[in-house]
């Protein structure tokens, strides 16, 4: 299903899903319903990514947020399902303040979005600078290219005049390594934070039994 009209239909469909999900999040008082709204919204975002040609990122969005929100849901259920439903609603003042702040923010952001002229100015500049007029064509965004970028070969940063890739702008290897270590540290930290204090005289195996 290609073509501008097909894309438009799908865009509007998923934009509505996304924004509707976000509204459900804000308006529902119940945490599980809010989580369902979040799922809808994130699903819509993933589909928007696919539409925009970012297939790998879209699939990634689905995959990561599936895991993430499942756990979120589980926590929501675990922490609230034990007792009768506590709405934890906020005061009217709080809502008033939120809306009062949201209005100018929305206005400014919309203004900014409208004032953005969708020209190909950046590319035109590069084009004029290099004088190379051979378009590479519509290369598909294969995960291989993303992977190569993460490993230090970024096609974007290659000089159009065929010069050497200079050090420091040849890819994302360093951020990739940093974020890997970061993730590891965070996961260890989270596991440490969330661990259950085992009361003395009770083996961890006894404790495990309670989870089931």
């Amino acid at each position, binding site marked *: 299903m290609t073509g501008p009209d097909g894309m438009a239909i799908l865009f509007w469909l998923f934009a509505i899903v996304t*924004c509707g999900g976000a509204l459900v999040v804000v308006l529902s008082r119940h945490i599980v319903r809010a989580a369902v709204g979040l799922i809808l*919204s994130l699903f819509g975002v993933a589909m928007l990514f696919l539409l925009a040609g*970012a297939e790998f990122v879209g699939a990634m969005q689905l995959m990561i947020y599936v895991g993430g929100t499942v756990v979120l849901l589980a926590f929501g259920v675990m922490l609230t399902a034990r007792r009768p439903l*506590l709405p934890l609603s906020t005061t009217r003042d709080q809502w008033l303040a939120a809306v009062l702040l949201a209005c100018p923010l*929305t206005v400014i*952001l919309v203004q900014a979005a409208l004032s953005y002229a969708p020209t190909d100015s950046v590319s035109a500049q590069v084009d004029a600078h290099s004088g190379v007029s051979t378009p590479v064509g519509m290369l598909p965004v294969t995960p291989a290219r993303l992977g190569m970028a993460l490993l230090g070969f970024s096609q974007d940063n290659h000089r159009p005049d065929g010069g050497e890739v200079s050090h420091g702008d040849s890819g994302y290897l360093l951020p990739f390594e940093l974020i890997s270590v970061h993730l590891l540290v965070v996961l260890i930290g989270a596991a440490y934070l969330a661990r259950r204090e085992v009361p003395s005289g009770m083996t961890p195996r006894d404790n495990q039994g309670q989870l089931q």
Partner: protein
Amino acid sequence: MFSPITPAHYLFVGIVLFVTGMICLLTKRNIIAILIGVELILNAANINFIAFSSPVLFPKRVPPLVLDGQIFVLFVMILAAAEAAVALAIALHFYSRFGTVDVDQGDELKG
């Protein structure tokens, strides 16, 4: 019948997500709901990144694809996952300490 989709369309979706996420932060007392708000805001940023790096929305650009946007989105996702892990661990700890998920109960550090 439909006007072609431009980056501005994507920006509007991003705005909606950002504002709703912010309202969510400002009005919820449930710690998990606040986390959900943060996720919405992060996704709003992601949408903008994807829109600006999209080969579909900028068909005439040379080179057609700017990988930076997609890479940034990947990094944001990873950071979001890490943040969610820590935040949920904190939530669990919070719950076991205060017996509730209401963040307003945790104001022991007030001045």
